[in-house]
């Protein structure tokens, strides 16, 4: 799989084989089609941008819903998707995991995600009991619901090569929704960290899922989380 991370000046392409890091090509924007070596050209022939996302949270927090909303939005953007929960005893408050796959071509793989490109932590308290960065690819992304700065979280998680984003989803949710539901805020922060889908499409699917004021409030949550999320390389 190829993970493309684009900044304003360069695109870095990670070449992975089910999470096993094989190599990385960095090139300035504008020469995407003329690649550096013959070997990388062969691999890039079948370029597919499969992004694997793992969601952590607790039962009842809408983790599965968030994983599905993201998939619905990516569908609107013309992508191929999969969103599925890891089923354990589904009890309110128990740690739960959800997965989303987004790809430019049909997704054949149906296993769990072992080496996510992105981890989203919906509930800040799960980090104390679950190793949320387990299997995260090198240069992957962590998006967490946390009051602390990305620097401090990065230190605390002890991860070197990852982008870390944090957003105070709790405050945003309490301000706007008046309820401690963090899933939509984390969607906003996720899109900030990695433009997987557009704000328009995620807003559209949220309005479809929650018609009326609930939807409008959640869209407001997403937008505010998008603005407030902060990240470091």
């Amino acid at each position, binding site marked *: 799989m190829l993970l493309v991370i684009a900044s304003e000046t360069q695109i870095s392409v990670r070449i992975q*084989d*089910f999470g096993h890091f094989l190599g990385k090509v960095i090139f300035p924007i504008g020469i995407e089609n003329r690649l550096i070596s013959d070997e990388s050209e*062969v*691999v890039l022939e*079948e370029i597919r941008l499969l992004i694997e996302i793992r969601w952590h949270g607790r039962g009842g927090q809408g983790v599965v819903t968030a994983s*599905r909303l993201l*998939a*619905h939005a990516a*569908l609107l953007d013309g992508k*191929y*998707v*999969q*969103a*599925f*929960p890891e*089923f354990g005893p589904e009890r309110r408050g128990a740690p739960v995991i959800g997965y989303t796959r987004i790809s430019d071509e049909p*997704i*054949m*793989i*149906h*296993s*769990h995600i*072992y080496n996510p490109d992105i981890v989203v932590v919906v509930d800040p308290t799960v980090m104390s009991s679950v190793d949320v960065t387990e299997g995260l690819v090198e240069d992957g992304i962590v998006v967490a619901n946390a009051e602390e700065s990305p620097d401090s979280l990065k230190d605390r998680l002890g991860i070197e090569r990852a982008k870390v984003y944090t957003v105070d989803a709790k405050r945003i949710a309490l301000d706007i929704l008046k309820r401690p539901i963090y899933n939509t805020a984390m969607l906003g922060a996720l899109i900030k960290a990695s433009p997987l889908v557009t704000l328009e499409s995620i807003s559209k699917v949220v309005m479809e899922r929650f018609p009326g004021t609930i939807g409008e409030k959640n869209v407001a949550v997403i937008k505010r989380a998008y603005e407030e999320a902060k990240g470091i390389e």
Partner: protein
Amino acid sequence: MSKVLGLTGDGAVAYAVKQCNVDVVAAYPITPQTLIVEEFSEYVHNGEVHTEFVCVESEHSAMSACIGASLTGARVFTATASQGLALMHEMLYIASTLRCPIVMGVVNRTLSAPINIHCDHSDMMGSRDCGWIQVFVENAQEAYDWVIQAFRIAEDPDVLLPVAVNLDGFILSHSLEGVRVLDDEEAEKFVSTRKPVLTIDPDKPITVGAICFTDFYFETKRQHVDAMDNSPKTISKVNDEFAELTGRRYGFIDTYEMEDAEAAIICLGSTAGTAMAVAKSMRAKGKKVGVIKPWVYRPFPTEQIIKAVENLKALAVLDRACSVGAPYGPLCSDVIAALYREGIKLNLFNVIYGLGGRDIRPTDIEAIFNEALEVAKTGVIKEPLKFVGVRE
């Protein structure tokens, strides 16, 4: 114009049933089939379908009600899983030999004990000799497509057999994917309405289910076998028409990179997709591997499998069920029987995997491919039957 909807595997089944003009649905909810029943009963509640939805008290009653309804000439659907299918067991045989063209979604889940709600194929394999046409699908799109085709296949006067469409519990049933659906009118036109051959009708009485002793039972069963033997013609015809309508081509088996493969995996359901993804990445490294995915498990696609393994040197047969005490798992026994009947000697080994929902990882599949490549090279089978993914 067709459109793409985000649907779970169960949701895709319910959506297909909604579009198929179904007269009666009798079902009892059981995890992980529940979403089918929930979503379909919502369609009923909202008046989106004319279907008579019968809430029964057990799966035994569900299948009994389906049989009765089907005998009146109605188009009938039900869905179940695991213990539910086991409880239906005796009625499954009655449905098929009474030639009731019922369509059923089987959301594969293991059988207790210990109690477990996750995927394996023990449920359908436990009932594999019930005389139903059995289909296994790889993803939500295939679940949708096969349910629609299933009504046409089941109700064809040359077949008149029930069809079970199997989808992996949770892995597909609760996984959201993009599904390209037909317009309602297109689907309705494709499935049309059922044209029953013999029905129970007070104005034209017949007797159904009368006792058949030693003098007629065997003949009736032989007819059942004949109907199954004749079904491939109809299945192909329906596949062709469906391909014409949708551009999506189905058949008895799906193959991936089999033309020049030296080693291959054959397996049912969603695992085939993972195997294809792994095969793709191994191909990029120059390893000649391929995948065979039977869509249709009964009638067993002997001819198609024989053709697919023509140039093959080694085969790994993956079974998500085990037949305790038998030399091999169920799919492997069938594959060996098919090869033997055609006089083909192919080096193969059987892998039992994924019981009780144990995830099969791409790395597991890669190791199986590598082992099959080793067998292809050396001709030596170290372990004819092995268990992958279980802790020692």
